[in-house]
């Protein structure tokens, strides 16, 4: 058994390096590989083989978790291209931030009004649509080394949208549970 520890996560699963992956295919490959290297299979094997199977199982898990979620997948793809998103500390442009702040203000008003009818669904839908658009942009930009900086910018913008959506969902949950006034 050769430990493919040096392969990238996509190749590990026999997938092309592409943002668009078939979730079912990824999960199927993951389960196959996971059962092939399962430490139980190596219970009576030599210590060296046992160690390798453990390492491989850990790497397969890590790869699967990374590729499963769109944002960690993009982050990983940027890292493969030598771009470290954590090094990017620049703020997005003021118009983008102003829009984000407006949205957060609207969410705050919805929370205070206690009435999700105040456009919560519309806001979540709009944020979801922006996320879908940005994901498509990033997918295309990641294929073109000349557009990596745009990919990074859009990746960073996506973090704000996901945060916004998370906030909207929290408010939705809170309101479904009976609003802020009741416990």
């Amino acid at each position, binding site marked *: 058994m050769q430990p493919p520890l040096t392969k990238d996560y996509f190749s590990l699963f026999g997938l092309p390096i592409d943002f668009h992956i078939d979730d079912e295919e990824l999960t199927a490959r993951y389960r196959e590989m996971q059962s092939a290297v399962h430490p139980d299979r190596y219970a009576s094997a030599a210590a060296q083989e046992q160690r390798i199977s453990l390492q491989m199982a850990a790497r397969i898990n890590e790869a699967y978790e990374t590729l499963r979620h769109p944002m960690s997948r993009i982050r990983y793809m940027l890292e493969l291209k030598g771009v470290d998103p*954590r090094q990017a500390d620049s*703020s997005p442009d003021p118009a983008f*931030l102003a829009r984000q*702040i407006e949205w*957060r203000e609207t969410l*705050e008003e919805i929370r205070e009004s206690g009435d999700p009818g105040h456009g919560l669904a519309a806001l979540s839908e709009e944020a979801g649509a922006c996320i879908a658009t940005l994901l498509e942009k990033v997918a295309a930009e990641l294929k073109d080394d000349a557009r990596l900086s745009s990919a990074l910018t859009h990746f960073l913008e996506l973090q*704000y*949208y996901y945060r916004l959506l998370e906030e909207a969902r929290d408010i939705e949950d809170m309101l479904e549970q009976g609003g802020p006034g009741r416990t």
Partner: protein
Amino acid sequence: MAYSAKVLDHYENPRNVGSFDKDDRSVGTGMVGAPSCGDVMKLQIKVNEEGVIEDAKFKTYGCGSAIASSSLLTEWVKGKTLEEATRIKNSDIAEELALPPVKIHCSVLAEDAIKAAIADYQKKAGA
């Protein structure tokens, strides 16, 4: 993670929450964001003819440390000249609030916000 007493105080009773009219010539607006967590912060200053910050307001959508950092900063800049306000360092904020290392970026965000607000005001004044 446990917040310090000062962070909790600002978080539970934030000072100077609100907005000024961003088109007012005496107002400088700084908007910044932390891409790693999606926190956003708006900090505004109202400057008089002597170049002294008369009032400051903020709106921060983020964690307790980000709210506390911007709340504290609005208290500090009031009555300061623009030049004095630019000298406030994120480390001063972090020290005052006893921020743990993982929350230092919240104080950096606040420093960036006041710098952006001052730059916005100066750009408008020069225009």
